[in-house]
């Protein structure tokens, strides 16, 4: 069902947890299945310095969360905003057709976290 890469990220998820004073937090619920993901980012000089996630969801949701954090750490905000759920899925070597919707979680939560960061920095 899942690729080895998916199972690797599921078994040893990277960057699980939360940040003490994040620059931005994004949380999304998957409208299709009701699963939930929260992402914390720490941004300095327009670059994502640190990132953590927490996910309530299926194997694909956890694996996409994990790889997504790996893919954007050290990237600029603009680069991170270009990440799509398809990029995430293909980085995992693909997802089963009925699991494609799961990969929306990670990309959407990341985008929410960036939006939150932008709002905060505009206000601040």
């Amino acid at each position, binding site marked *: 069902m*899942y690729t080895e890469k998916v*199972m690797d990220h*599921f*078994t040893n*998820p990277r960057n*699980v947890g939360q940040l003490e004073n994040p620059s931005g937090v994004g*949380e999304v619920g998957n409208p*299709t*299945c*009701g*699963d*939930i*993901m*929260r992402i914390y980012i720490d941004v300095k000089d327009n670059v994502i310095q640190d990132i953590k996630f*927490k*996910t*309530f*969801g*299926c*194997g*694909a*949701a*956890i694996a996409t969360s994990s790889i997504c954090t790996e893919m954007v750490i050290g990237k600029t905000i603009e680069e991170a905003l270009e990440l799509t759920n398809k990029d995430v899925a293909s980085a995992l070597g693909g997802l089963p057709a*009925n699991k494609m*919707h*799961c990969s929306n979680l990670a990309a959407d939560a990341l985008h929410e976290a960036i939006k939150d960061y932008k709002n905060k920095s505009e206000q601040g």
Partner: protein
Amino acid sequence: MQQVYMDHGATTPLHPEVIAVMTDVLTNHYGNPSSVHAWGRDAKKRLEEARTSVAKLIGAQPEEIFFTSGGTEADNMAILGVAKGLEKKGKHIITSAIEHHAVLYPCEVLKKAGYDLTILPVDDQGRVRPEDLALALREDTVLVSIMHANNEIGTLQPIAELARIAKERGVLFHTDAVQSVGKIPVNVNELGVDLLSFSAHKIYGPKGVGALYIRRGSRILPLTHGGGQERRRRPGTENLPGIVAFGKAAEIAQRDLTAEADRLTKLRDRLIDGLTAIPEVRLNGHRTERIPTNVNVSFRYIEGESLLLSLDLKGIAASSGSACTSGSLDPSHVLLAIGLSHEIAHGSLRLTLGRINTEDDVDYVLREVPVVVERLRSMSPLYNQK
């Protein structure tokens, strides 16, 4: 690594005696039961012997047993077949909210075709209330279909009482007994049902064969048409190896029923006690009115598929009512019907015991599940660490 199969509700490993019988038929008894010659007569004899064994398991007469390709076909045959057969009498059907899709979906198809459908609710332990059935019955009701044991939460329905209420009003009663046959005593006359579905692969027989019991005199039309097999109610060359194996599985189930039920009830109760000691967990289904093989619990804050994958990595086979495993992306309709929220339904775990499980398996599961639950909770955005 230890391998623990606790998904007997999904399907069971064949009993070694069943494999032996089936291999013998596959190898040596290949005749078509419809043929006139020696090969055919031999096949026919074995077919009818198997019918007798299968009938005995549920206290029926052999001529009331109609072999099908499994539980799904038996359920569809009962519902669509009775609906067609009694079209002139009426177009109202009653079922429950926790039926298997093999019952619910044909009922919904009938609804789309203009039938009235009443779906009875269940209480928080998954039981239909007899008074609800009494109120739902109408002049034009042609069939009541309520399952004997639920496949997800294991709850047993008061079928004898429900069937009596239907009978008083002259309405045919069908029960899906796929999950109860072979696990607890099932007798069509004591239950008072007119139709009953069951399936070989849930009782250590092969996949691809099941049966519908049809009480003599019940009006029902076939779903398919062709040769004269199964007295025209279910045409097609009979699956002889599967049917003979089903017969053997039925004999073994009957022989071992009491001893196995006792043994498995003890294992089940140990599992329930051990798992419900984990914080923020609930048992789904009735505590005592449940089949000896079923354990179903929900863990707050975690999701079922992740749980299954984690257990799989430990060699444990289980299932879940989580949306993420269902294909339909909605959490189990059964768990919602007993009042669980979407979120809690998501975190459900079903362990179903069988003849290959031991005390040792239970120990292993009780050791591993808490570890996995803790790990997943620590990753969950819903879990407030204290």
